[in-house]
Every structure is written in C-alpha cells, then in structure tokens.
C-alpha cells in the first residue's frame, strides 16, 4: 500500500473509529476460529474432544495424537508424495508458464500468430470436455496410478500464464530492441532479460502453483489407486469416511450419528494441523506477493 502524499493529521479517536476497529477485529478473529479450534482439539485428549469440552485451548494437554500420527506410515508417506508433487508439478508449471507467457506478450505486429494462440489458450480456460472424457483420456494414456496423472493434466496453468504475460508486457520494449540489435536471440532475451526482471511476478505464480498442487485432492482420488502413491489431501479426505457419500449411502441415520460421534476427532485434527504447516510457512511470502498478482490479473490498464 502506498503512503498518501499528504501527511495525515493526528486525529482523536472517535467512537466510530473504535467501532470500526472492533468490527475489523471480529472479522479477523472469525477467520481464525475454526483453525484455533482444530489446533486446540488436536492437543486435547480424546474424551474431552468427543464430549465437546474443547474450544480454543487444549483440554488435558497431550501429544498423543501427534505421536500416533508419527507412528502411522501412511501419513508421512502421503506427505512426501505431496512434497514431490509440489516440486515436480510446480517446476513443470513454471517452465511452461515462462515459455508461453513470453511469446504471448508480443504484439501481433511482432508475432502474427499471437492472436490465434491467445484465443486457443483462453478457449481451453473457458470450455472443457468435462469430468468423464478427461478421466478417460488420462486412463487411455496409461497415466493411472502414477504421479504424472497429478502433474501433467495441470501442466499449463492458464491463469498464471496470463498473469505473467501481463507482467512481461510492462517490460520496456527498448530493452528488447537493444538486445535484438546486439544480435541476441529471443531465447537469450527471455532467460537473460525478462526472467531476471520479473522475479517478483515469478514468485507470485510459483506460490500460486505450490498452493494449488498442495491443496488438490480430487485428481488424487480419481487417478491414484495405490495407497503408497496417495497425496496428502486425498488421504485426509479419505479419512473423513463419515462424510464419504459412497459409504454413507448404505447406512441408516442412526448409524451415521454413531459414526460421527466415534470418529477420531483428535487424530484427524492433528493430521489437518500438520498438513497446514507448509501453507503457513509460505504464507508470509504469499501475502507479500499475491496482492499484486490479483490486482494485475483482474484489473489492468
């Protein structure tokens, strides 16, 4: 946020200032309530959690849920699969975004086919074949049950490409022209002029790519069958079996009630808390960059 050019006079706090501050505080706290509640449950003992005695502070503090989680092989394995997926998928996303954004940032005068490519890219963003045909293509390509099924279908993050393209457009054309005069190739210009000048925007789309890959669960559910290859979010999703429609379809309401009460609140909460850690680690960086990301992406000159 830019500081305003005119220095603000120190005003006295009025009643309306206090009320606004209070409403804002309420907004902020309400956003943290579910997270704090889950953290508190994860550090509480099972009985207190099941009886609903936990609100925002652990009751009968215990690390047993976390210990049990450490002993469970599946959680660690899925965590590592997700890390691998983020690194592999994120790198593919970045390379393809850079390679596509650069030519697309050229004016139609410099690159006649630009319009065609642009329409093509936007069309793929606006229309899709739907769930079943996409599923069948991935199965046909023998990608089922491999990490490639998680990273290749989303290899081109169209939104990020457009974002980066808009950043590239703002780089002064004179820089590029000078390089052309010196005999540089577009390939050289991209990697030695555009990329070094766009560190902030590259950080933005890298963070978006990381968050997207980390948070995806549905592709894992569709394409991964072996437990050893299951990404973390898909694994956590499968735990909340109480909410799994395929299983619940066969249960009576009484059975569901029972199941809801029995599910291991503390254990699941601990897993959720740990799965949030990577997002929380990158969150300060995210916050620094995503504002520019959305603003440039949504309203541009």
């Amino acid at each position, binding site marked *: 946020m830019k500081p305003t050019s005119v220095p603000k006079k120190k005003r006295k706090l009025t009643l309306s200032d206090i009320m606004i*501050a209070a409403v804002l505080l309420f907004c902020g706290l309400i956003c943290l309530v579910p997270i704090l*509640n889950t953290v508190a449950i994860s550090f509480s003992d099972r009985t207190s959690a099941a009886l*609903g005695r936990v609100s925002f502070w652990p009751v009968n503090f215990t690390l047993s849920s976390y210990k049990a989680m450490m002993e469970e092989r599946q959680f660690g394995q899925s965590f590592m699969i997700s890390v691998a997926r983020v690194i592999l998928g994120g790198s593919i996303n970045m390379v*393809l975004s850079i390679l596509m954004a650069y030519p697309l940032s050229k004016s139609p*005068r410099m690159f006649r086919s630009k319009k065609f490519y642009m329409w093509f890219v936007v069309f793929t963003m606006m229309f899709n074949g739907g769930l079943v045909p996409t599923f069948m293509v991935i199965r046909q390509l023998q990608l089922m049950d491999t990490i490639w099924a998680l990273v290749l279908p989303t290899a081109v993050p169209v939104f990020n490409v457009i974002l980066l393209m808009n950043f590239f457009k703002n780089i002064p054309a004179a820089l590029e022209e000078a390089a052309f005069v010196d005999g540089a190739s577009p390939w050289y210009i991209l990697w030695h002029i555009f990329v070094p000048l766009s560190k902030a925007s590259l950080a933005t789309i890298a963070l978006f790519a990381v968050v997207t890959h980390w*948070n995806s669960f549905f592709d894992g559910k569709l394409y991964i069958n072996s437990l050893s290859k299951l990404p973390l979010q898909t694994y956590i999703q499968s735990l909340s079996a109480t909410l799994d429609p395929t299983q619940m379809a066969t249960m009576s309401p009484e059975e569901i009630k029972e199941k809801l009460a029995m599910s291991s609140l503390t254990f699941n909460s601990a897993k959720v808390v740990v799965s949030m850690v990577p997002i929380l680690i990158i*969150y300060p960086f995210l916050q620094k960059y995503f504002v520019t990301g959305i603003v440039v992406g949504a309203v541009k000159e």
Partner: protein
Amino acid sequence: MYNKKNARYYHAMLLPGMIFLITFSIIPMFGIVMAFQNFIPAKGIFGSKFVGLAQFQRLFRLPDFWQILQNTLIIALSKIILGTLLAVVFAVLLNECQNVRYKRFIQTAVYLPHFLSWVILAVMFSNIFSYTGIINQLIMAFGGEPTMFMISNTWFRPIIIGTDVWKEFGYNAVIYVAAMTGIDPTLYEAADIDGAGRWKKILHITLPAILPTIILMGTLSIGNVLNAGFDQVFNMYSPLVYRTGDIIDTYVYREGLVNIQYSFATAVGLFKSAISFGLLAMAYKLADKFCGYRIF
C-alpha cells in the same frame, strides 16, 4: 518489428505448452460425442450406438435434475451476491482504519482461509458444527437444543454459503482495497472542509470510486452461476443432504465415476459447460463493452 526468425522461436516456445493443452483440454472435448451415444466401454467411442438427444431427454425428465439445478443456482448466486457484499463492506471498513499495523494484522488473518483447501476446512467445520462442536456448545449455553447441522436439510445450504463467504471475503476484498488506494486524497480533504462526516464521505467518495470495480467483478462472475463449488460441497455433503446440497458437479461425479454411466454423466457435464461457456463469453463481452476490460 516482425522477424521471421524470431517468430520461429516463438512457435517453438509455445509448442510444449500447446501439446499439453491439446492432450488434456482439446482431446477430451472429442469425448463429448459420448453424450450423444449409449457408450459402452468395451465397444469404444467408434463402436457405441448413437442415440441422439436421448441422454438429454432422460436428464430433463428426471425430477432430481431440476432439484439439483435449483440447488446449484441458489448456492452459486447466494455465494456471489453475499460474497461481493461482504467483501465491499470489509474493504470500506479497512479503508477507514488509519492504523497501518492494525490493518496489517487484520489482513493477515482474513486472507489465510483462502489458501487452505476444502479438505482441511471440511474437517475443521465438521468439528465446529458437530453435535458436540463449539456452535452447539454455545447454543446449549444459551439454553437451546443442539442440532445436527451438517446433516440437516435446513442448515446445509446456509452452511455451504456461509463457509464459502467466510473463506473468500478477505481475498475478494483485495481488489476493492486496491481500487481505493487510487482515490485522490484531496477529495477527502475537500469533503472535510465542507464538513462532511465519515458516512457521507463513504457514500459520496469511496463507494462511487469503487463502483466500476464492483460492476466489473459482478459481470465477470456471471460465468460462475453454475459453479456452486465442487470441492467444498463434495467434502461437506452426505446422502442425507442431497435434497438441498447436491449440485451439478457432484451429481456428474457420482453418476459418471461411481455409477459408471459414462454417457449420461457426459451429457450432464456438457449441459453445464455449454451454458457456462455461453455465460462466460457474454460476461467477457459485457465487461469489454461497459468496463473496457479484456483478458488479453
């Protein structure tokens, strides 16, 4: 200037990305023919019988479908309207707050939910809304009766809408906050001199200044009226709330990949994506015409 050699580089740079887009976006579009067939996996697309619009006729005759369409529209529209409203109110309040550090602190809290997945949030909300969760504890503290929120047809839609607004209002406000930083501060100073109060300044300076942004965002969201949020509903619903909570996307998933009715599910999916495509194209057209907005 145009240069043939450079153009060759550009084509080459676009090639890998285009291959992926063709493979995973364009080729599946051909699978849409299944919607007009009685597709049998063993026979393949070329061997299966064409049935014209039979799948669509079946769909429109299904009483469930109209319920699902209604659920989808109610959930999606409520999310758009309430989400925009709250984002604007929040942005205005944030703009009124003078203390930069306080503002920072609040922003840090409200942007966070946007980056958490619905898988994680569904676990959190099922804790909160569970029979023994904090909401019911609160209700009981005031002498009320506890409710099974997540499996109640009365509560499911409000919960879906409310939690989505909760997740996104901060993030959606970013764009309005940005629009407000562009307001000329002398406008506020002139208003001060004229003796305008805070409310008057909001009404006559802040809101008119962000109105174009509100209109633009509203227009662009037209394309989303059939997107009720698959990830969210899928992670929070159960058969007990299908009546009020089942949406087109979840229905397509269950019909297609759980019940293995490929043709029917493809037809339902096509129904949705064709309408969405039309609405989106219209939204972009309107945004270009009235707001001068172009995606590229």
